[in-house]
């Protein structure tokens, strides 16, 4: 394989890993606080639609981003009300949110644009454009490092850099701030947090809302940066791959980045090659599609290091009366 081909595959890995990473970190906040979230997919989808719709109407991608985040926050709030305030089943709430997003986006898209459940294609101004890092053009002639800098690191939209900066930020928030300590504690032992006089409900709502914010960015990235507009079901299971990555990473931010890059690489390879020949054996493209899920099951099974979720995950907290 040529060097440039490898660079191109890695470049598309970064692009494809970005929405996974944002959604994965979103799930990280929520699940570390003890709220399971299988509704990442739905929140991304909703944000993808509203960001594309508003960007298409106003021609301003930043307004689109805000609209996407707002719509994702509404769904996150719904998840919070169901699973924190009314102590409902968090998994069922997540399922409902996924369906709500899948249905509402097409319904509203058809009503607003009459294009069969899609938004109009976005043109410049309505999309996030690539950012060229300083000296990218002049350095591209340097062997090996030149293409790595100018092709791989430079030339992504601002949301890609935000996603990758969110990794150290998440690590710092979770492991170096008081809020992060409490957030992790509320996912392990909410009663202890409550005894210390800190609001369990407040912390959990905070985590769920951060989750909504990040899912909103992820959705907006899909519709306004990776692609130019919204199409029906455009998240295509990415929310679940992000969930898989979260388990693969055992709920840790740096590992989440590694897992998302790995799954992004699998997607990039599957996009570029249909069937791969390795030493005479042809690996079908479907095997590449299934690999993230298979890996997650293997990790969950505990054959390669056990994945232990936050202890209070999925359980509503009932204050002692």
């Amino acid at each position, binding site marked *: 394989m040529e060097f440039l081909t490898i660079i191109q595959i890695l470049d598309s890995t970064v692009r494809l890993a970005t929405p996974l990473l944002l959604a994965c970190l979103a799930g990280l906040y929520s699940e570390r606080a003890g709220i*399971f979230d*299988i509704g990442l997919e739905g929140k991304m989808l909703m944000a993808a639609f509203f960001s594309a719709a508003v960007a298409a109407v106003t021609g301003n991608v930043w307004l689109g981003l805000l609209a996407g985040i707002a719509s994702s926050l509404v769904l996150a709030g*719904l998840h919070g*009300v*169901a*699973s924190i305030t*009314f*102590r*409902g*089943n*968090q*998994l*069922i*709430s997540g*399922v*409902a*949110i*996924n*369906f*709500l997003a*899948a*249905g*509402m986006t*097409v*319904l*509203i898209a*058809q*009503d607003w644009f009459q294009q069969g*459940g899609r938004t109009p294609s976005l043109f410049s101004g309505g999309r996030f454009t690539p950012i060229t890092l300083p000296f990218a053009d002049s350095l591209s002639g340097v062997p090996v490092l030149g293409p790595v800098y100018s092709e791989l690191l430079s030339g992504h939209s601002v949301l890609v850099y935000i996603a990758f900066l969110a990794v150290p930020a998440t690590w710092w928030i979770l492991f170096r701030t008081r809020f992060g300590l409490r957030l992790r504690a509320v996912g392990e032992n909410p009663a202890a947090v409550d005894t210390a006089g800190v609001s369990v409900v407040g912390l959990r709502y905070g985590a769920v809302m951060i989750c909504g914010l990040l899912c909103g960015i992820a959705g907006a990235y899909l519709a306004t940066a990776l692609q130019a507009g919204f199409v029906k079901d455009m998240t295509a*299971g990415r929310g*679940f791959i992000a*969930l*898989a990555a979260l*388990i693969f990473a055992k709920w840790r931010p740096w590992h989440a980045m590694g897992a998302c890059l790995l799954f992004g690489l699998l997607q990039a390879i599957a996009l570029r090659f249909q069937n791969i020949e390795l030493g005479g054996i042809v690996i*079908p493209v*479907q*095997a590449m*599609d*299934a690999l993230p*899920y*298979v890996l*997650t*099951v293997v990790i*969950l*099974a*505990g054959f390669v290091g056990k994945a232990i*979720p936050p202890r209070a995950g999925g359980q509503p907290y009932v204050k002692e009366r």
Partner: protein
Amino acid sequence: MDKMPKWADVVLIPLISLILAALLSALVILGIGEDPMAAVKLMVNGALGSTYGWGYTLYYATNFMFTGLAVAVAAHAGLFNIGGEGQAMLGGLGVALVCLLIPWPHWTLALAVAALGAGIFGAAWAAIPAYLQAKRGSHIVITTIMFNFIAAAVLNYVLVNVLRPEGSMDPATERFPEAVHLPSLHELLAPIGINFSKSAPANVSLLVAMGACLFVWLLIWRTPLGYEIRSLGKSEPGARYAGISSVRIIMIAMLISGALAGMMAVNNVMGEAERLVLNATEGAGFIGIAVALMGRNHPFGVFLAAILFGFLYQGGAELALWTSIPRELIVVIQALVILFTGALDNMVRMPLEKIFLAVRRGQN
């Protein structure tokens, strides 16, 4: 002492949840500039106004009975089987293999073995998540979600590379032989003088589904195994203290659940399409969640809820045909039903419990 009489729990709460979901759906229809009353009329006419409509309603309902029962059986054991979709896909593979590989003399034999094949394939697909939950404590919700995606990839591979007939571009098996054609309701009802629509897909599998409802009722409430399943679902430590092996019950409950989901393929693959296509399940595995929630995990409730969702599906198709309301409206209604009967159950329950307590205090 219960806070509420039983009828309130079984009838009143689902009813209120359903009304809330219906009201919100009406608002959604208003929001996209259509008339909710006209929409309801169109749906009722389209789904229940003719034997053709009924034929489609009952066809969808048959699918949902199987997947709803699958979710319900797992729920009684305290497990959330979200993998009905994947199990039904694999069930389709089982049906296709049975129908294509064996030359059947008569459809009755074919139906029996196809149902068995579908059940075995569906159960096998549930077996790995079940084993991992029972033995390794891997969360069954996550593993069954993952297995849905893996099932889609497996089916895609098998249809494109193995079962696709020579020279065909379509990723689907060849047509099943004429001998395994299942009689439709038209053919079943004609001898007793009822003229049921010829072109509707409802078929003899409806009776199989109703039989499955009865089987699940007997299993859960009339056998020692059912008692053990329910005990485990109520309290795992309690069940273990009573000498019930949680590993055994988790495995059995999930195998039955997977088999039920897989058996859906008798209806959609063998009864309707008469060949296996990609995405044959059309999301029915997920609708099973809504159906089981709505039906309070009781087979009779599942039966009624499945017919309700069958009506919604056929009515929604009619809406999409005659108005500018897309079919996705049904997905929204489904989401609202899951939300209100499942996740927001306490929102309806808590005020009701207060009312009943106040009434009781007033009486004393």
